[in-house]
């Protein structure tokens, strides 16, 4: 077998393994409480009958291991169980919200990825001059600022004071794409700002790393123009690290989404998760956790695979 095929299939298998292990971890995470989960969910004042009922609903009378496997088995078939709070099917209520979240994340990615790469290149081009210093200063600030501050600052100034965009991002199916985009303008901006800095900084580092290689000097000493050096020699070697950076930041976007959705009351997965954590609706929390972890693991796996595919040593073995 071609070594690259072997490595990629190893990665895929590893990703799958990791996903299963993560599901176990999420399951365990909701079981580690000393004492009784049902008691904790219902609080101290609950009647014994209510607790007994909930224990039955949660299947707590069965051993944990068999509960885990029936949960995982059902989840693999698309059955995520029913919510404790309103008895609705989780998969159904999650489906639309997942779509909304992906819609939000998609537009944030569409804007932030090209912008980050462009600004990263700019920082490299003007290394140690003011554009670079400005960019690294903004980066430093932005990794120190909580997402909700950016959210509220934008909401306060752009949404409320200037009135350019709605400060609450409500969308529904009957809206046109334009109306939807207008509705999510602020959350998309926030998400973009949140990942932009990281992505920019990492892109800059990746390109600089390539630019410091000896073969770049060789290219310069061939009398090539700066553009030729970058296009022919730096770019082919920088793709892999940049794609890696992008994937890692998209994974980070998944986390940013949770907070941003709460800030802008956006009907997505994050909002759904946070609501049900507060209500201690364990099946919903487990299901959401599983989906978030799956997306995160998937993106990290893609990053790994891309760097394998881009490595000339692996692509053209001896």
């Amino acid at each position: 077998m071609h070594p690259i095929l072997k490595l990629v299939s190893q990665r895929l298998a590893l990703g799958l393994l990791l996903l299963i292990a993560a599901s176990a971890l999420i399951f365990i995470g909701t079981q580690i409480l000393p004492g009784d989960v049902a008691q904790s969910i219902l609080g101290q004042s609950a009647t014994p009958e209510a607790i007994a009922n909930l224990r039955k609903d949660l299947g707590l009378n069965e051993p944990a291991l068999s509960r885990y496997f029936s949960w995982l088995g059902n989840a693999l078939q698309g059955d995520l169980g029913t919510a404790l709070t309103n008895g609705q099917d989780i998969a159904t209520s999650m489906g639309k919200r997942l779509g909304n979240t992906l819609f939000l994340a998609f537009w944030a990615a569409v804007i932030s990825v090209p912008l980050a790469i462009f600004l990263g290149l700019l920082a490299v081009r003007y290394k140690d001059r003011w554009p670079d210093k400005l960019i690294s200063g903004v980066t430093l600030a932005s990794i120190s600022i909580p997402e909700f501050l950016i959210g509220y600052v934008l909401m306060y100034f752009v949404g409320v004071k200037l009135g350019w965009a709605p400060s609450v991002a409500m969308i529904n199916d009957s809206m046109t794409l334009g109306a939807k985009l207008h509705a999510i303008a602020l959350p998309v901006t926030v998400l973009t700002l949140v990942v932009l800095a990281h992505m920019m900084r990492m892109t800059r580092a990746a390109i600089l790393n390539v630019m410091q290689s000896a073969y770049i000097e060789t290219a310069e000493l061939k009398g090539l123009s700066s553009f030729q050096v970058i296009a022919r020699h730096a770019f082919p070697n920088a793709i892999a690290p940049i794609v890696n950076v992008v994937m890692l930041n998209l994974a980070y976007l998944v986390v940013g989404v949770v907070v941003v959705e709460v800030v802008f009351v956006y009907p997505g997965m994050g909002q759904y998760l946070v609501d049900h954590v507060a209500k201690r609706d364990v099946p919903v929390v487990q299901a959401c956790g599983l989906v978030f972890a799956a997306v995160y693991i998937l993106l990290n796996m893609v990053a790994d695979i891309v760097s394998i595919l881009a490595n000339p040593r692996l692509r053209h073995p001896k």
Partner: protein
Amino acid sequence: MFKNIPISALIGLFFTGLYFFVAIFAPWIAPYGMAEAVGDVWEPSSAKHWLGTDSIGRDLLSRMIYGGRTTIFIATAATILSFTLGSCLGLLAAVMGGWVDQAISRFVDLIMSIPSLIFALVVLSVMPVTIPVLILVMGLLDSTRVYRLSRAVAVDINVMDYVEAATLRGEGRRWIIFREILPNALSPLVAEMGLRFIFAVLFVSTLSFLGLGVQPPGADWGGIVKENKDGIVYGIPAALVPAFAIATLAISVNLVADWVLNRTTSLKGGRG
């Protein structure tokens, strides 16, 4: 000593010091009690209430000072926990190698395959949300990152010839960890400690903002944002004040950490 500190690091040191000072001496500094309703809802700033009042008429400055105390306390405790646990395990894994290293490293990989915030939310959905639980959850989750760094740093140092020389001399594991590896790992670890502290501040603030951190009537900065966030749509900026405090604290610590890190790298590259 102070001559060589760049201005940015000085600013960072000053504000970090200021925030910690205020947090420690909060009861003597705050003009009003934390839970005292002393005015109208969302009064604008005045001589009496420098930052105005909050959603139920409490003095915002006092609440900020007490809230900062809570935020800084939780973040510090979580950092200490994550740091002690992570760096001890990391150094141990690097020096022991073999199955110990494999077992810890794979377990850490697993924990890190789930985003911290999501995992924390999952756990907090069944846990009672109290300050010790918060510290424990945050500290344990974050120790994975400290583990990775300290292991990586220690592995790099462990292959140095001077460690081999010590091994060949017959030195015990304690000498190797504490005299050969730790002094050389300290600077990057200290810089990392700053970053972990920032992360803890942001983490606890985010949890409180989501309503899953410090519970009322107690408050931290994230919680104060949550209490006052409804004012934003009416054009009342009270929620921005604690958010701004979080950001300035984080930036200050970041400036200091950045300086420590730069100093380390230049030390490493320094040759006679």
